[in-house]
């Protein structure tokens, strides 16, 4: 083993901070909302969130560039992609791309949710993957552009562009649904 060089402080330990498990659990609602529109299914969203927390809380986590919520959303998305790979499907090949079915599933999860809110979230869930994940991270999860860029592994400009186009598609879908 290389000899430790006596007086030097660890180089990047100061850049890392430990994820606070207590604070991570406080993001449960945001993570669940994000999961709901990411997969479009109540049962799958619950499984994804539970699995994500099980992984994240299983041992100490050190964050460098991510904030807590960004890290959790990145872990959630990784879990979702692993889940899809295990099923042999891609995100757009999920069984629930029909907005009406998604709205029904979201409504089951949250019976108190207004009809309009169900339609809005279903419209987000029915977006193509790249737009959906971006709108989910920013408008549903509440990440900033830079946090979303880190969580999704793309440039901030890409986030802004996808966000704009994703929102436009949601607007179009809602206008097709009728006024409101």
């Amino acid at each position, binding site marked *: *083993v*290389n000899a*430790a*060089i006596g007086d*030097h402080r*660890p*180089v*990047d*330990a100061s*850049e*890392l901070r430990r994820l606070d*498990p*207590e604070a*991570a*659990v406080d993001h*449960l*609602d945001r*993570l*669940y*909302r994000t999961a*709901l*529109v990411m997969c479009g299914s109540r049962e799958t969203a*619950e499984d994804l*969130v*539970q699995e994500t*927390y*099980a*992984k994240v*809380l299983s041992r100490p986590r*050190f964050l*460098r560039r991510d904030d807590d919520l960004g890290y959790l959303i990145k*872990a959630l998305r990784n*879990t979702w992609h*692993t889940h899809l790979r295990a099923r042999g499907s891609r995100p757009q090949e999920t069984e629930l791309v029909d907005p009406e079915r998604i709205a029904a599933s*979201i409504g089951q*999860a*949250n019976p108190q*949710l*207004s009809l*309009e*809110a*169900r339609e*809005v*979230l279903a419209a*987000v869930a029915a977006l193509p993957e790249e737009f959906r994940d971006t*709108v989910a991270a920013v*408008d*549903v999860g*509440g990440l900033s552009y830079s946090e979303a860029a880190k969580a999704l*592994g793309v440039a901030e400009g890409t986030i802004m562009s996808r*966000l*704009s*186009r994703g*929102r*436009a*598609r*949601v*607007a*179009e879908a*809602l206008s097709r649904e009728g006024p409101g």
Partner: protein
Amino acid sequence: VNDPSTNPSEAELERVAATIRSASAEVRAPAELRERVDDLRGRPSAAAKPRPWWARFPAVATAAVAVAAAVLAIVVLPGGGEPSVTDAAELAELPASEPAPAAEPDQPALLAASFEGLSYPDWKREFGWRAVGERTDELDGRDAHTVFYENPDGARIGYTIVAGDALDEPSGAKRSVVDGVELAAFETDGANGVTWLRDGHSCILAGEDVERSTLLELAAWKGDGAVTF
């Protein structure tokens, strides 16, 4: 192509964003999910739950644990615990405890860092990955030394060499041969990893924000013969 993004104004898009945010705010995680996550955290949940059987019958529980431990020791762990490749891959997420190793003055393909007689590569000139620190750990009784590297985009990877005999490949790992080097790629906890052998020792390269193909290329790099396998 009919791209609706060209139609709405900025103000309209902002209204849509506000509508999405407002709809999202109405969604709450179900109580059962909250309870399950609280259990994972070890935080007491709001709903009182019955005590588990082992808490109500501690003597029976103690005996059961002893029996289970004995069975495990006999059946599962005949030679003691072995570290796994995925255990070693998780070291890549830990902070460095020592400064970055310097470049080897006489050999630009290597760092002045070695473990078990194996020198770590210097990928800065060829690939832009610079060494940023190192650390030594013990995994189930085996020393493991990790050098951390970063690329200009801020992605971070850890290169771990584990002392002793080769470790078993993770189940489901995908084997490939790059530049004559046999490698096994795997995924753990959202991170990509690659394992291979150098002089009979397991080497593991892993990172969260790095493509598998990048890890394979780095792992198989020979530095004009300076990096030995």
